[in-house]
């Protein structure tokens, strides 16, 4: 009777209770054999969904809930506080400059690495990727030790400042924040473009060069269309990392309300320790969560468009 049709959970229960146990074991074995693929599938999906919810979704909800813990009014107050606005400004400056600098670097370096053969190419590629494998704290440290009070490049900078009549400091200042941000995001764009250009090969460029096209024309007309989606993708990742950087910036930025970025402001609010300030920290965090989600959405759009535009 159990062989006909689908066996429901209730049937299994009945069988277990009413029939003799051996039959249950036998049928269960058959069922497992027949459906093991499905069972494994749903177990794996279950693990994934659980991991996804616990590790990725729940933290986002946590931020929102805690940010709104004291009501909308104090949420708004936290976001419009002078320190927050200053931090937002510094964050945006650092992000825009870091993306711009690394875009230039990424385009030039990936062109160099993929279109030419030269000695030391592997070493150069490895050096470009260094910031990936380095603690951001070391990045901050490196700038302090170069441009800081007792850094060896301090006299050089002083000299330049004197000659230009400027007063630029490369540590504990907004330029320092920018530099540290550039450091940690340095390889982001080149790393996205290099694989694209490798698969594309060199023949199109060679063909264009044979016809006498200039380097700039070749880049603009031939190479660039291949990498525009990769470039955009890299820029998005770079921006996301730039506005979220903490360790490197923390080392070179000490003045709250002047050189602090949003993550540093969050740290300051959180470490102040009072229930109010912690809620404010989460309020500011929600701003960054929003920015992160926008970046994720952009990233997915670019990925989708890029795949569709693949020629």
């Amino acid at each position, binding site marked *: 009777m159990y062989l006909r049709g689908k066996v429901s959970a209730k049937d299994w229960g009945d069988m277990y209770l009413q029939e003799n146990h051996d039959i249950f074991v036998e049928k269960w074995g058959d069922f497992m054999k027949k459906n093991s693929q499905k069972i494994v599938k749903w177990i794996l999906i279950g693990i994934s969904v659980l991991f996804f919810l616990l590790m990725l979704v729940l933290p986002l909800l946590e931020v929102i809930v805690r940010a709104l813990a004291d009501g909308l009014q104090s949420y708004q107050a936290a976001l419009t506080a002078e320190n927050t606005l200053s931090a937002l400004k510094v964050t945006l400056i650092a992000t825009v400059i870091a993306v711009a600098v690394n875009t230039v670097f990424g385009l030039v370096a990936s062109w160099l690495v993929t279109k030419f053969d030269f000695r030391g190419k592997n070493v150069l590629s490895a050096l470009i990727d260094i910031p990936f494998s380095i603690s951001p704290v070391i990045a901050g440290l490196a700038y302090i030790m170069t441009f800081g009070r007792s850094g060896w490049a301090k006299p050089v900078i002083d000299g330049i400042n004197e000659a230009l009549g400027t007063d630029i400091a490369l540590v504990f200042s907004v330029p320092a924040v920018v530099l540290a941000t550039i450091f940690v995001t340095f390889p982001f764009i080149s790393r996205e473009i290099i694989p694209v250009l490798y698969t594309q090969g060199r023949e199109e460029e060679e063909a264009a060069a044979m016809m006498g096209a200039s380097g700039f024309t070749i880049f603009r007309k031939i190479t660039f269309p291949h990498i525009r989606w990769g470039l955009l993708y890299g820029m998005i990742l770079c921006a996301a990392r730039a506005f979220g950087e903490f360790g490197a910036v923390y080392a070179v930025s000490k003045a709250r309300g002047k050189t602090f970025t949003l993550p540093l402001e*969050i740290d300051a609010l959180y470490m102040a320790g009072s229930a109010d300030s912690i809620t404010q920290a989460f309020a500011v965090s929600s701003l960054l969560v929003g920015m992160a*989600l926008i970046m994720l959405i952009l990233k997915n759009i670019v990925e989708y468009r890029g795949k569709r535009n693949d020629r």
Partner: protein
Amino acid sequence: MKRAQIKKRKSIIPGFGLSMGITVAMLSLLILIPLASVLAYSFRLSGAEFAELMMRPNVVQAFVTSIGCALAAAVLNCIFGTILAWVLVRYEFPGKRLMDGMIELPFALPTAVAGITLTKMYSDTGAIGRAFEKLGIEIAYTRTGIIIAMVFIGIPFVVRAIQPVLEKLPATYEEAAGMLGASRLTIFWKVIFPEIRPALLTGFGLALARGIGEYGSVIYISGNSEKNGTQVVSYVIMQKLNSGNVDYEGAAAIALVLLILSFVMLFAINFIQHIASRRTNV
């Protein structure tokens, strides 16, 4: 003389000199020269001072904590990352697109935000923390907490490394093995695992490197207690930059050792990769 002239022009594609110049200049100014300063600074310590610093209990413990937790997190990430990548590539289920799109959240979410959020979630006032506390397990302010933070920031590395490999692996591949009568477990270990192993190693290496150097997401949940052994190396370095008596030489020395350790580990992974690929290529 003519020969030298010939050697110079290597490629027909123009722009070699210019792009080489820009690349090397930017790389040197922004990355290499500052890093060299760290090296130079750490050499200001004498050998004996250097040894004494490295043997200090809190420094040793910080290295043990950072590397141990990063290793544990990287292993966990390999397990969960493989499952996630597999599920995302092979199965259809509601919400899959969303899940796929959100995998990179830990890349995009600022580490400080992740840090304070995870801390609150897993501390005794947070939802998950409370549940575990009832079971007598403390997560926040222990090494377990550090590992969780490192799993969070490392998971996209593994998933994104494996996913493209699985996508290229045709389902017929497993079917062929299945037709030959291999069990599911055998199919995984003998057929699929060798295919994803290089990517898995890459993901492992990236997650490990990120974990060892991680600062923002870890320092809140760790509690930074010397007594509980929850100080990570990045924290110890930062401390030497912040506390009343600034110790640049010490910070540089520890940073240097951390750098060397990271490179050795990356090198080791590349080496394993190399050996493994040679074996399968023959």
